[in-house]
């Protein structure tokens, strides 16, 4: 061991002093970072409900009854009638947009819901579609039609500037 330090009488003490100063600087820096500024525990980590989504809102939306041609039918049935060719989009537009506007939204934010019904032939969109949008609360289900085909139904909240806390309230 002592062979390493045969640099003269002052070799080891100088090296040790330099190492100690460096160590002290590193320890002080990280102590301030971890304990002074409380980086390790700045805020309790949140297990957010927004990360655990189900399709309850979308299912309820599809089960909501709407009046089309003086008949009270569910949105799911109205979509089925559309795809069997017995209806047009304009009849669906008004009642579905009305429901989308009434769904819970973050307060004081410019936000709106989008409903997309995707089929290999014809796809439908309800709500205001924007080129740049931040999607929240995305939900999707496959809706079986009487023609034995399925359509993919997607619902999401488009909101610019929404934060996680605001979304948690309606998730």
């Amino acid at each position, binding site marked *: 061991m002592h062979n390493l330090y045969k640099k003269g009488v002052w070799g080891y003490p100088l090296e040790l002093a330099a190492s100690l100063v460096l160590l002290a600087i590193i320890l002080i820096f*990280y102590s301030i970072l971890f*304990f002074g500024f409380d980086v390790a525990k700045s805020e309790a*980590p949140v297990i957010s409900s927004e990360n655990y989504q189900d399709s309850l809102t979308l299912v309820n939306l599809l089960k909501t009854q709407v009046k089309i041609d003086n008949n009270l039918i569910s949105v799911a049935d109205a979509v089925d009638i559309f795809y069997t060719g017995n209806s047009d989009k304009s009849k669906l537009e008004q009642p579905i947009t009305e429901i989308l506007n009434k769904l819970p939204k973050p307060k004081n934010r410019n936000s709106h819901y989008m409903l997309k019904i995707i089929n290999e032939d014809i796809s439908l969109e309800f709500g205001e579609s924007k080129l740049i949008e931040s999607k929240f609360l995305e939900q999707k289900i496959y809706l079986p039609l009487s023609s034995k085909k399925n359509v993919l139904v997607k619902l999401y909240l488009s909101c610019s500037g929404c934060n996680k806390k605001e979304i948690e309230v309606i998730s």
Partner: protein
Amino acid sequence: MNKKGIAETIIDYTRLMINLGLVIIVSIFIVAVAFKFLNTEYRTNDFEAKLLARSLITADNCLSYSNGVDVNQGLIDLNKFSDERLKICFSSPRIGYVAKLLDLENNQLAIASPESKLLDFLPICSSLPEYKCTEKYNYVLYYKDNEIKPGILKLEVISLA
């Protein structure tokens, strides 16, 4: 062993002690940081409120409508909207909650809450650090006048932090 040999041995041991000391200091620092991480608290009150809301909306013994055979999840039975029913459904000394059913025009149709001492602190919850408060709004359906209508289930939850 001559004098030079003894002196070198003493120097070697001194260096060993100094190095060992440095290793111990660094180890203590690493353990202290790790300990701080391990003791970090997780805020779960929002997630608990969501689970509570889902139970209320989907479970037969809570507010969900049932015809005796099938449970219609997401469809609220107004007859079940009572304090007693919510007490059977979910009650805990750590959590107090108020469930309100609103129509889409924000008119209150029903209100219920299981008895809890925590509810006394609900109006001033935000100023009490030992309690956490959460609000949840869920789109639901309900039966009224033989018709299925859309509404909002508003849940106000207070829990111990």
